[in-house]
């Protein structure tokens, strides 16, 4: 997440380069946190946790599944904005 900076007229994310920077920083922390899994000897409460990159994979997969399923749900659940006003 980035910190917003409000200067006179030119704003931080008006420059696509800054958006790129944020995304690259995210890639970097993702990579580092994954690699730390090799170094840090984690305490585990459950055998699944011991798998390399378990939390990384789970977090990524959970969000992708969440969004794709929710998108499908739209087909069933979505109605026009004034649906209940009619």
């Amino acid at each position: 997440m980035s910190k917003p900076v409000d200067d006179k007229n030119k704003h931080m994310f008006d420059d696509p380069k800054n958006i790129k920077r944020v995304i690259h920083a995210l890639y970097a922390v993702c990579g580092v946190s994954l690699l730390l899994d090799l170094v840090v000897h984690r305490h585990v409460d459950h055998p699944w946790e011991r798998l390399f990159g378990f939390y990384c994979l789970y977090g990524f997969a959970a969000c992708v599944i969440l969004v794709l399923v929710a998108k499908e749900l739209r087909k069933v659940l979505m109605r026009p904005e004034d649906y209940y006003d009619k």
Partner: protein
Amino acid sequence: MTSSVAPFLIFYISAVLAGVTGGRLRAAIMLAVPVVGALNLWGMADGTAGQLVLLDYTLTFMRVDKLSMLFGYLFHLAAFLGIVFSLHVKDRIQHVAGLAYAGSALGAIYAGDLVTLFLFWEMLALTSVFLILARGTERATQAAMRYFLIQVLSGVVLLAGVIIHAGTTGSIAFDFIGLGGVGSWLIFLAFGVKCAFPVLHTWLTDAYPEATPTGTVLLSAFTTKVAVYAMARSFPGTDLLVYIGATMAMFPIFFAVIENDLRRVLAYSLINQVGFMVCGIGIGTALAINGAVSHAFNDVIFKGLLFMTMGAVLYRTGKMNGSDLGGLYKSMPWTTGFCIVGAASISAFPLFSGFVSKSMVMVAALQEGHPVVWLCLLFASAGVFHHAGIKIPYFAFFAHDSGIRCKEAPRNMLIAMGLSAVICIFNGSYPWVLYSMLPFPVDYEPYTVAHVLTQSQLLFFSALAFVWLQLRGLYPPELPSVNIDTDWSYRKLLPAAAIAIRTLTGNLAAATRDWTVDAFSFAHRKIYRLHGPEGVLASSWPTGSMAFWTAVLLLGYLLVNYFS
């Protein structure tokens, strides 16, 4: 103890005072109330007081122990933040309702018996509905009526349960009840409605987003947390709650992802967070209850903060749909920053408040042998970051520039948001003050290398998924729309069924009427033919024919006699 006043009284009296004063005096009274109330709490010792004997039962207005004190302080804090946030509001009704609502929540928390709990349970509904009505729109009015009806009904169910429970056990004590007879199930159901159990949850997602910008902040703090408190008191260790809680943590996030109204997104995520608490209460170990209660504390502050930031946006722009907003970081940088603190807290980033409380419930789930529930909660943790942690700040303040340029939020709003943000960071970075207030001694260390690393991995890769989906164009865009939920059953199905039944009965009645009329007119026609002016039976007969027929009869008689 004896020198203290029942906390709800302070708020009720000040609600009256706020009703008859105005301007700076009212503001001063309102700001003083939570402070005076908190000082009042300071002097309390454990025990019960304020008892009133009514028929065979003793009503207790003040039961003081660690659990009620934690919620007591929490509600004073939440009331203070909510009051600061709403100081700019001129509407007298909202201020009076807000104070009375906070007082009712305190009354319920300190209730020592189920009858007193019921009284304040209904007062919560009665006082809070004005915060929704005050919005003044047709939509809000209708949502308020639905909200009020369901809330009052939950009170009726509670009362029925209490009566049956008292009849079978002879006790109205507001202590551990556990699932047993019909009475306890009804009490459980009533608590469940206010907890927003799945299928019973739509009063919350329906009404909260329709309340005033400041009203929603108060609403999000009290009603559901009173229910969590009641659950923790009466049904800890109830296995069913583990599964209900896991469901509550899971299902709302799907709705949140596709919801356009950002305050409704937060309403769904409120249910998701209460799910963690309900699950912890169901697990019922000291660690789990501590987790549930401390998460309730943190949730009131960070969810309040998130509702404040969205309230500020609504107040300044008049818009709340993700499809209409975007780019507001340029106009409201402070609000943006506070929103990000709230987002980080609800997502449980290390150093932010959610990190030190939610994980207690998750560790307890594993320790008590619920690995599948643990996976569900982990899924919900990733999901909550996705919809509340990223979606809310992203679509309101970043995303595409909507072109809206407005003023930064009013100063009182900024102060309230700033204070909330400070509490979020303080509790997250230095949890031991919060831990010392919990009902059980805390034997839990949140800041282990493993916990910090795994939680960071979960969140970073969730963010990565968001970026990936956005860049690939797979992320569902914000669309002007509504999504149907179980409230569809009483907002569409029930009215449609009523109309259908009315039409059907109408048709039946008409058919019966037609048939009856037909039958009568048929009978009438028949009788008329026989008895009418032209009818056979109505025609007059001449005397001659009478004599003739008499002669015929006599002749017949003669012949019969003659031959026999």
